[in-house]
């Protein structure tokens, strides 16, 4: 059986999962809903050994769990004991799985999960069973971490190439870094604003919405904050504002290029108190110089859109040129096959889009016929 390149976009919504696939990133077919009437706030597409789609599922009635599919969504498996569960003595229960992040290429089987209540989890079996990271869970700051409007969670996990450095971001709490593989954690928020707190900038407590690491320099990380777009060049020791040139400094999304240094994307929203595209005009911001300058990209996007884009409702693929994808709370999903140069709508009128992930996969023709 011959294999062929296929592009996969997984779309997690408030009421189920849809899978879009394409051979050429122009013609897309949509499969779904899977898990109808459950929200899908997190997705991980793990292409390190075949293709495994991991999804965090949450039913308003029946609670959260993790499931995975090794056949592009034809069948799903849920571990009997639940992939992520606190131990009896922890006195906590998983509320929602916010992030499923496969580790790097050279660490197959390792998958990270960011969870509400604020916690980090690690799996060594491809996302079937996770262990709580005790270093972060028992951090002395934990009683003071808070909740944003959507709840409190670790929502970003960045494992560095060195195998010992990890950055996570939480709302609210900010960015934390470990240099020992997750054993101990240090708040790394110096320079990041917290307009919702009085007084001088705190050591922690910022509401960092999303972080993404530069493709070439793991110590260079970009952050979309609750007000403010930032960059660090020293692994989080200090952050500098890089919002000059953007129409607004609020938003939830931060994406970085998989290969090119200095390239990142944001999707600005007007303000904390006005969570719509600026002036109702949907546009993506792209930098190619690590935030020194930005260009706003809107080709193919609607002239008017008043829906917000949530922190994980945007993703890039690894193709050349890179594909950029995002979904709105109005249920539209847009795709660009040229790094944001132009977009097309690949799904419409879905429930609120909570999470989008994209991958280039080699398949045997399972999903796309013809």
């Amino acid at each position, binding site marked *: 059986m011959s294999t062929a390149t296929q592009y996969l976009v997984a779309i997690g919504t408030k009421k189920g999962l849809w899978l879009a696939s394409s051979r050429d990133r122009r013609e897309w077919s949509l499969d779904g809903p899977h898990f109808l*009437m459950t929200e899908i706030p997190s997705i991980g597409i793990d292409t390190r050994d075949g293709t495994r789609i991991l999804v965090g599922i949450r*039913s*308003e*009635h*029946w*609670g959260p*769990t993790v499931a995975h599919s090794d056949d592009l969504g034809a069948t799903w498996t*849920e571990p*009997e*004991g*639940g992939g992520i*569960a*606190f*131990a*009896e003595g*922890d*006195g*906590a*229960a*998983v509320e929602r799985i916010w992030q499923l992040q496969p580790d790097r290429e050279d660490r197959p089987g390792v998958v990270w999960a960011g969870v509400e209540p604020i916690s980090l989890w690690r799996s060594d079996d491809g996302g079937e069973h996770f262990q709580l990271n005790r270093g972060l869970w028992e951090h002395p700051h934990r009683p003071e971490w808070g909740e944003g409007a959507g709840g409190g969670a670790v929502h970003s996990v960045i494992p560095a190439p060195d195998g010992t450095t990890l950055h996570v971001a939480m709302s609210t709490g900010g960015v934390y870094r470990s240099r020992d593989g997750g054993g101990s954690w240090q708040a790394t928020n110096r320079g990041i604003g917290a307009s919702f707190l009085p007084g001088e900038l705190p050591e922690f407590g910022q509401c960092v919405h999303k972080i993404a690491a530069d493709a070439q320099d793991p110590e260079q990380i970009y952050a979309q904050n609750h007000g403010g777009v930032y960059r660090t060049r020293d692994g989080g020791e200090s952050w500098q504002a890089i919002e000059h040139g953007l129409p607004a400094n609020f938003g939830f999304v931060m994406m970085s290029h998989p290969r090119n240094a200095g390239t990142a994307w944001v999707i600005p929203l007007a303000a904390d108190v006005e969570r719509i595209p600026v002036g109702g005009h949907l546009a993506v911001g792209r930098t190619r110089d690590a935030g020194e300058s930005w260009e706003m990209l809107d080709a193919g996007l609607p002239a008017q859109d008043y829906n917000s884009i949530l922190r994980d409702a945007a993703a890039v693929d690894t193709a050349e040129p890179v594909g950029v994808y995002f979904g709105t709370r109005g249920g539209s999903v847009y795709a660009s096959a040229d790094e944001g140069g132009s977009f097309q709508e690949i799904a419409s009128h879905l429930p609120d889009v909570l999470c989008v992930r994209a991958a280039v996969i080699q398949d045997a023709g399972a999903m796309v016929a013809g």
Partner: protein
Amino acid sequence: MAAFTVLIPGVLRPLVQDADAVEVVLPEAGGPATVARVLGSLAADHPVLGRRLRDETGALRRHVNVYLGPDEVRRLQGLETEIPDGAELMIIQSVAGG
């Protein structure tokens, strides 16, 4: 030995081979028959169903209701409500969501 019947809502029946009811038998040892013991026994045989009904702390999920006769058990003694031999427990999802 005491036997009980747990009525399963349609949406959860795939977790119990599409049965609409599951019989639960509790040994005399282990104290009085309570809702918690019945749900614990049910979860031991059907762990995924168990996780749908209660979280890791053992608490009944917020929008899961368990009825003993006409009474939702939260209006009685919650999971510690004692139930008579032969009783039926009915699981119903509450009105929630949008």
